[in-house]
């Protein structure tokens, strides 16, 4: 695209505005928080607790999302079946659902008086006001981000690769694990980054479904709000925000590196069949 035209300049201006608008608030947080205060905030027990809880619950949530979501996305991505469009829409619905609505929906489904509430209780599971409830809320809001990307990545695979694997004696699982997943890796990693980021920032669904109990269900975003609501707590909220941004950036970069096509060939942990 040529920049020295009317439209070129317009697009350039639009790009500049978008970038400044998106980056400014992030810069502002770090402009307000000196490294010293950041460390002080990290020294506080409640802050550390909230961060640790966020890290733990989001990690469990993304592991669940990957373990269940990858084979599910493989199936949906490869097969053409009646009602596929409907399934895709259902998967994407939580994406556009307001988080508070997601929390209410989870209560209606899995809460003590929800339609599966009795079954959850019989299974000996406690979700409401429990850390497990946080994980459920995180999985619910983050899974669609991963699924969408993973389905698209698998659908874009050359079907002949899988056929080639079969002619070489590979069963379905081996074709999936050794051909489909590695080939779809950039898409899977992008989905993982989005899902993890969404889980890390989750607020509304967690609050309504699992509550905001310090040390149990109060994740970092909930702790930020709790500090913010406390008189004189803005500083602590700011510091926690800065840490959360760093964490999110770390995850984004880490996962992107995971998805990048490595120049070095040998995957670690070579299997011997």
């Amino acid at each position: 695209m040529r920049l020295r035209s009317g439209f070129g300049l317009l697009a350039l201006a639009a790009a500049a505005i978008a970038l400044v608008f998106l980056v400014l608030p992030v810069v502002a947080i770090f402009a307000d928080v000196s490294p010293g205060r950041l460390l002080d905030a990290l020294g506080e027990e409640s802050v550390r607790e909230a961060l640790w809880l966020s890290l733990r619950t989001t990690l469990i949530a993304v592991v669940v999302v990957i373990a269940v979501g990858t084979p599910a996305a493989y199936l949906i991505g490869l097969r053409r079946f009646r009602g596929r469009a409907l399934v895709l829409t259902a998967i994407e619905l939580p994406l556009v659902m307001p988080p508070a609505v997601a929390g209410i929906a989870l209560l209606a489904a899995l809460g003590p008086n929800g339609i599966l509430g009795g079954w959850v209780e019989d299974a000996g599971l406690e979700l409401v006001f429990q850390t497990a409830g946080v994980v459920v809320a995180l999985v619910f809001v983050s899974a669609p981000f991963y699924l969408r990307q993973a389905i698209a990545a698998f659908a874009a695979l050359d079907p002949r690769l899988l056929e080639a694997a079969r002619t070489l004696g590979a069963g379905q699982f081996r074709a999936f694990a050794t051909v489909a997943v590695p080939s779809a890796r950039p898409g899977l990693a992008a989905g993982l980054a989005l899902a993890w980021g969404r889980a890390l920032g989750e607020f509304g669904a967690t609050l309504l479904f699992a509550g905001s109990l310090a040390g149990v269900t109060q994740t970092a975003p909930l702790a930020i709000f709790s500090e913010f609501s406390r008189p004189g707590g803005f500083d602590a909220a700011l510091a926690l925000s800065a840490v959360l941004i760093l964490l999110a950036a770390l995850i984004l970069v880490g996962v992107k590196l995971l998805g990048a096509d490595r120049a070095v060939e040998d995957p670690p942990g070579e299997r011997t069949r």
Partner: protein
Amino acid sequence: MSPRGALEVSARMPLREFELAVELAVAPGERLALAGASGAGKTTLLRIVAGLLRPAAGRVAIGEEVWLDTAAGREVPTERRCCGVVFQDYALFPTLSAWRNVAFGMNGARRERRRRAEELLDRFGVAALADARPGSLSGGERQRVALARALATEPRALLLDEPLSALDPETRRDAQRELHEIVGQLPIPVLLVTHSQEEAALLADRIAVIDRGRIVSEEALRPAADPPGR
């Protein structure tokens, strides 16, 4: 190597505009070219032999072993047919190096698989590329890796789908000669499809011309040589 047997195929299958109805047999060591315009049903037939497509009715057998018999309700899945396939664009696994592509169908310890894969690559003159990924190989090199991969499982039959179509004209001449040499020495039935009669004439012992799902003519180009090593 597994016992040698002729490849016998009969298949009927309604396609979009016509019905595929083909019967053919390829002797061990013989190379049969199915030639015809695109859309004539060549690739469909190849897929039926490999087990990637099930015909409405048909039988596929290699020697005593029956891979498909719709009348008897028998179907051996692709992964257990041991049928080597070279796909049109080679379908090399892009995330695996050349040797890993070749070793994909092999059993055994890693070191042993690597040794055997390199041996095969060496036979096809591309041993130096063992660690390269398909993306960095030329068309001709890819063809050789794909051939090595298809033969690595010691298949009962070899299928080639337009093996030269992905190559530019210059590479094609050399690749054609090499392919002729390699495929000519195989003791198994070789079935190749091509839209080019010229290519068929150079690579095959016998040509069957297929048009709208039916074999309309057959021509033996050279006496089916005794398979080598007999």
